[in-house]
């Protein structure tokens, strides 16, 4: 029964990502699900509110492809390289017709929004933003008075996405999902979301999950679909599976700076392929990114 959840990316996106949705593809540098972003572009989704701490290359591509109505974020750049030029073109010297709406926080603010969403609280308090222009730029940053100390604390509103897409190293067929390395804010984003698509490097038997329950980050009960998509996070990385394709990140600076070049990229690598397998067939360099082995020390769960 539970294995009804295992499906192709095409089907998962068709069923669970709709025009107008608030979509979160999370992952801090690590485990960013480019495979899902590409499929959303291919299926021509429109009017999406894209939310994510670091929009990264995948949201730059989705903005360029016309999927986004609004971006909710805290750091919009090409990490370690430079700019997201499709994003910048949509914002700089903004004309009425260009309108990509933005809603901007700091990382802590975005993390707090997901934490509130995951706990189903309407807001989250944080000690922040005094002496900054961020609350002027974003009136959704407010304050609350502590009932014990009388102190004013900043607040951010809960973020409850329509759908969150999490890439992970492994899950079972029901969607019990394990991640390691940088785990960012994925747990909070998933629990905050109405629907969750889990995309994994490996589908594993339930017994593997059960052998190490403290490693489980997302439980099956909140998962709508499980997609098995090896290398699905390329050009980002998956700890224990493959390294970051830094050359791609560096090359993106020139690709995204030129709208025609960016369009050619989308034509070749997104619209021009039917699925992730075809994309990978065009990326022979990935074999040299395969991870070396650095296994953890085990722990005993017996009693």
């Amino acid at each position, binding site marked *: 029964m539970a294995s009804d959840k295992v499906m192709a990316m095409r089907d998962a996106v068709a069923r669970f990502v709709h025009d107008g949705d608030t979509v979160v593809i999370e992952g801090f540098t690590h485990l960013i699900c480019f495979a899902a972003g590409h499929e959303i572009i291919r299926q021509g989704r429109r009017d999406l509110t894209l939310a994510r701490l670091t929009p990264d290359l995948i949201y730059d591509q989705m903005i360029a492809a016309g999927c986004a109505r609004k971006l909710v974020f805290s750091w919009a750049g090409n990490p370690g390289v430079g700019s997201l030029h499709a994003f910048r073109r949509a914002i700089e010297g903004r004309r009425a017709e260009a309108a990509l709406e933005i809603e901007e926080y700091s990382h*802590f603010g975005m993390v707090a929004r997901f934490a509130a969403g995951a706990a189903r609280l309407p807001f989250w308090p944080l000690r922040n933003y005094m*002496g900054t222009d961020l609350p002027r730029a974003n009136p959704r940053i407010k304050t609350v008075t502590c009932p014990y100390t009388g102190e004013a604390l900043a607040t951010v509103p809960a973020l409850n996405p329509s759908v969150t897409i999490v890439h992970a190293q492994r899950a079972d067929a029901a969607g019990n999902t394990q991640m390691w390395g940088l785990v960012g804010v994925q747990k909070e984003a998933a629990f905050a979301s109405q629907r969750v698509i889990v995309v994994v490097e490996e589908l594993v038997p339930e017994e593997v999950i059960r052998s190490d329950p403290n490693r489980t980050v997302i439980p099956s009960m909140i998962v709508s679909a499980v997609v098995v998509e090896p290398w699905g996070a390329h050009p980002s990385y998956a700890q224990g599976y493959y390294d970051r394709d830094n050359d791609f990140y560096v090359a993106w600076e020139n690709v995204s700076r030129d709208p025609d070049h960016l369009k050619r990229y989308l034509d070749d690598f997104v619209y021009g392929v039917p699925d992730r397998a075809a994309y990978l067939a065009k990326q022979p360099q990935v074999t040299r990114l395969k991870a070396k082995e650095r296994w953890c020390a085990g722990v005993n769960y017996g009693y």
Partner: protein
Amino acid sequence: MAAVAARELRDGEVVFVGIGLPNLACNLARGTHAPRLALIYESGAVGAVPERLPVSIGDPALVTGSLMVCGMADVFQLFLQNGRIEVGFLGGAQVDRYGNINTTVIGPYDRPTVRLPGSGGAAEIAVHARRTLIVAQLNPRAFPERVNFVTSPGHRYAGRTRRELGMPGAGPVKVITDKAVLEGDEVSGEMVLAGLYPGVTVDEVQAGVGWPLARRERLEAVAPPTATELRVLRNVLDPKGLFLKKQSDGKTE
């Protein structure tokens, strides 16, 4: 700059590390006078021992062999807001008279000339780290009297001090540039000239700063990188010159 920044770190301190020059400075300090420096990256890696120069703040090399990896809710709540971070490193497109930093926009927020990446974790680092160090190349565009947008707070905002605004940390104690070191003045809150690199004059520094720069009574002579610092930087931390090359357009490292 990396060597000068590294000297600001004391052994055993807990440092919130950004990528690029801060990462280089922190690892230089670990390789020289501060072997017990504890490095925390906003990505969640604590006590990282990267076997290569990390290309981003979320590089897998920061994870492998680190002491702890935690979620970002813990990074910001349990480490930063908790007051556990002693030093935060910040950079910025603009730094102003009071050490306010702008990494958000050049021009008006609603119709920017240049859209910069935004805060990331910088706003909260500037609020909470017990002290922050700013690193930036000295030039008038980067050091206006007043930033276009305050992303990360310095010593004064609309005339109010950090204490009046309720900020726990001491704010930017130093700005380390490629020509001089500025310090936050305890009374005025202004960034004032505190030290000069070898061969740099006060006038040269003033020419790179958009406000009348006050100065300490005695200016420190900033020592050039020692042989040991250069050896660690060039042979151990950045043997391929990935980072130092970019920075080495005639300026002191």
